[in-house]
C-alpha cells in the first residue's frame, strides 16, 4: 500500500531501533520507480510541513536527477519553495560526481553558471568516497534539524547510480550506517533492478525494511531489457505495485496494488484479487495430524459407518442387481424390505425390464443421446 508505506516512513524510527528503509525497484519493462519515488517524496514533504511526521527535514541525495528538477517538482505540486530552505536540502551528486567540471573550472577560472534554484543545494564531487558521502549527509541533516534529538529523512534518488561508482559492500555499509544513525527517521532509495546482478538486488533488499517493486502487468514475458514490452500500450502508463514490508512483530505484509501514471503524478488503486501465491509458497502443501486427542477418539468411535445395520439385527440388504437367495421367490419385491413395516412412508418399486438385461449395467443410459 502506497499509503501505508508513507505512514510507516512518516512514523519513522523507534528509539534504539533501525530506521525504516524503503527500496523502490523497477525494471525497464515498467520504469516508473521514479514516479513512486517522487510521490513518496511529496507525501513526506507535506507531512514535514504540517509537522505530522517524526522527521523534520529531508535530505535528497540527487545522483540521477538535477537539483533543478526537484525544485520544479516541488513547485509544480504546490509546495512552498520559499520556506523549503528550512526543511529540505539537496546534496547534488548529479552535476559533477567525479569532479571533472571542477577541475576544468579551476584551471579556466570560470564561474559556476548552473541555473540558480530556489532549493538549498550543496554539491558533492567525490561520489566514489562513500564514507565522506555519509558524513556529508549527516552533516546536512544536522544543519536542517539541529543537534538535538530531532530527526530527518534521507532520500537517495538512485542507488543504481551509487552502485556504479562504489562497490556493493560500501553501498551496503552506507545504508547500514544511515539506518543506525540516531538522527535519521527513515531512508528511501530507488533501484533499477535490471542494471545489477541478482546479488546486488538481494543485498539491498536485505538491507531494507520495505521493498516496493514496480512491475509490468504481464511480468511473465518481462524479459530483461526487452523493449517490446515497454512499447506495449498498457505498460506505458499502468502496472502493478507490489510491496513487501517486514513488520516489527516479525511478520511480512505483502500487498499488491495497481498504479496508473497520469499527467500530474501517479495514482494507486487496490486490486480486489490478491493472489495467494506468496502465501502458498510459505506453507507446506499438505498437513498431517498423526495424534488424536481423547475427545477425538471418542467422537470417532461414535461415528456410524455407512451400511452398518442400524438397529434390528437383520442382515444387511443392499440391492446389487442380482437376486439374492432369500428373495428368489418374491419377484417384484421392493428393495428396501427392511423398511417394509412402515409402508405409509411410501416406497420405490422397481421392476426389471427383462432378464436379458445385464444386472447393474455399466452402460451410460444417455449413451445414445446425440447432443
Amino acid at each position, binding site marked *: 500500500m502506497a499509503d501505508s508505506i508513507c505512514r510507516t516512513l512518516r512514523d519513522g524510527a523507534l528509539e534504539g531501533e533501525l530506521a525504516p528503509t524503503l527500496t523502490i525497484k523497477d525494471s525497464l519493462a515498467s520504469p516508473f520507480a521514479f514516479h513512486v519515488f517522487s510521490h513518496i517524496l511529496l507525501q513526506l514533504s507535506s507531512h514535514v510541513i504540517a509537522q505530522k511526521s517524526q522527521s523534520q527535514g529531508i535530505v535528497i541525495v540527487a545522483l540521477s536527477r538535477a537539483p533543478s*528538477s526537484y525544485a520544479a517538482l516541488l513547485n509544480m505540486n504546490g509546495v512552498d519553495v520559499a520556506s523549503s530552505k528550512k526543511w529540505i536540502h539537496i546534496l547534488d551528486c548529479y552535476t559533477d560526481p567525479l569532479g571533472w567540471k571542477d577541475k576544468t573550472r579551476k584551471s579556466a577560472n570560470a564561474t559556476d553558471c548552473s541555473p540558480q534554484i530556489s532549493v538549498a543545494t550543496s554539491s558533492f564531487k567525490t561520489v566514489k568516497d562513500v564514507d565522506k558521502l555519509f558524513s556529508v549527509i549527516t552533516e546536512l541533516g544536522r544543519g536542517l534539524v539541529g543537534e538535538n534529538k530531532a530527526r530527518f529523512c534521507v532520500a537517495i534518488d538512485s542507488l543504481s547510480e551509487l552502485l556504479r561508482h562504489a562497490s556493493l559492500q560500501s553501498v551496503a555499509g552506507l545504508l547500514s550506517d544511515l539506518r543506525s544513525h540516531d538522527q535519521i527517521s527513515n531512508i528511501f532509495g530507488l533501484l533499477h533492478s535490471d542494471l545489477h546482478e541478482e546479488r546486488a538486488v538481494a543485498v539491498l533488499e536485505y538491507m531494507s525494511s520495505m521493498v516496493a517493486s514496480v512491475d509490468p502487468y504481464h511480468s511473465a514475458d518481462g524479459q530483461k531489457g526487452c523493449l517490446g514490452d515497454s512499447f506495449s500500450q498498457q505498460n506505458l502508463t499502468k502496472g502493478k505495485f507490489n510491496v513487501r514490508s517486514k513488520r516489527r512483530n516479525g511478520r511480512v505484509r505483502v500487498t499488491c496494488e495497481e498504479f496508473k501514471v497520469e*499527467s500530474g503524478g501517479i495514482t494507486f488503486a487496490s486490486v480486489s484479487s490478491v493472489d495467494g501465491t506468496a502465501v502458498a509458497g510459505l506453507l507446506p502443501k499438505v498437513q498431517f495430524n498423526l495424534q488424536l486427542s481423547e475427545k477425538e477418539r471418542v467422537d470417532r468411535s461414535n461415528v456410524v459407518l455407512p451400511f452398518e445395520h442400524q438397529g434390528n439385527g437383520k442382515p444387511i440388504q443392499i440391492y446389487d442387481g442380482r437376486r439374492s437367495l432369500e428373495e428368489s421367490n418374491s419377484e417384484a419385491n421392493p428393495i428396501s424390505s427392511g423398511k417394509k413395516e412402515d409402508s405409509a412412508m411410501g416406497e420405490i418399486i422397481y421392476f426389471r425390464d427383462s432378464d436379458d438385461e445385464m444386472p447393474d449395467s455399466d452402460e451410460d443410459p444417455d449413451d445414445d443421446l446425440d447432443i
Partner: protein
Amino acid sequence: MEQKNWNLLDESLGLHINDDAKPWPLCGRFVLVEDCVDTSAAFVLHHILKRSFSSHPSSAVLFLAFSHPFSHYDRVLRKLGCNLTAQRDNGRFFFLPMLMFQCPGEGKPNHDGLASVFEQIERVITLLHQDKKSISIIIDDISFLEVAANGSSDDVLNLLHYCHTLTSEYGCALIALDHKDIYLNGDRTAVILEMEYRADILVKAEPLATGLAKDVHGQLMVLNKETQHQHGITAIKSYNFHFKIKENGIECFYPGTKIQ
C-alpha cells in the same frame, strides 16, 4: 516560423510543436536512437541535425563524430538542404572528430582521456551558451565510444552522465546513437540499459519482419516519455511507423498507408 512539412518522425519527437519560449523543442531532453546491423538509424541523426538548424537562427550543434568524417556528413546534409560547411563557418556547427580518439589500454585508467573529451565539449558549450544559443549535442556512435574506452562501460557511462548534466545545466539537447543488437545476448548491457532509463525519447529502428524491401526500409518505434516542463506535463506517447530513406529526406507512413 514558416510552415514546414512535418512528417511522423517530427511529430513523434515533438518537433512540430511551435513554442516561442522553447524554439528548439528537444531542449533539455535526451534522445536515444537505437538500431541494428540490418537497419541503420543514422538518418534519424541527420534528420534531427537538419531540423535543429532550421528550427531557429540561434540554434547550434556540437557533433561528436566517432564513425564518419566530416566530409561524409557534409555531403549527406547538403543533399538534405543544409550546408554544414557554412554553418561551421557561422559558428553554429562544431564538429569534434573523435575518429582516432583512443584511451590508452593495458590497465591504465581511461577516465583522464574521457575527462579531457568532456572538457572539450564543455568548452564549446560554455562558449555557445554565452551567445544564448540553444544547443544540441549529437554523438554518432556510443558503441565506438565503448571501443575507444577499451570496453569499460563505467567510463562510458560517466562521460554520458556528464553530457547528460549539460541538458539541465545549459538546456542542451543530447542525441546519441547506439546499436541495440550488440547487447541483446546479455553481456555488458549496462550502457544500453542505463541509457534507456535516462532517455526522454527512445527511437528504435528495426527491419521489417518480412525482410528488406525497396519501398519500405524499416520501421521506427518512438517512445516519448512523460516530461515536466513549464506548461505542465506531457503524457507518454508511443509511435510506430514505417520509413523510407531518400537522399533529400525521409518518408514516414503508417503501415499500409503509403501513397505511391
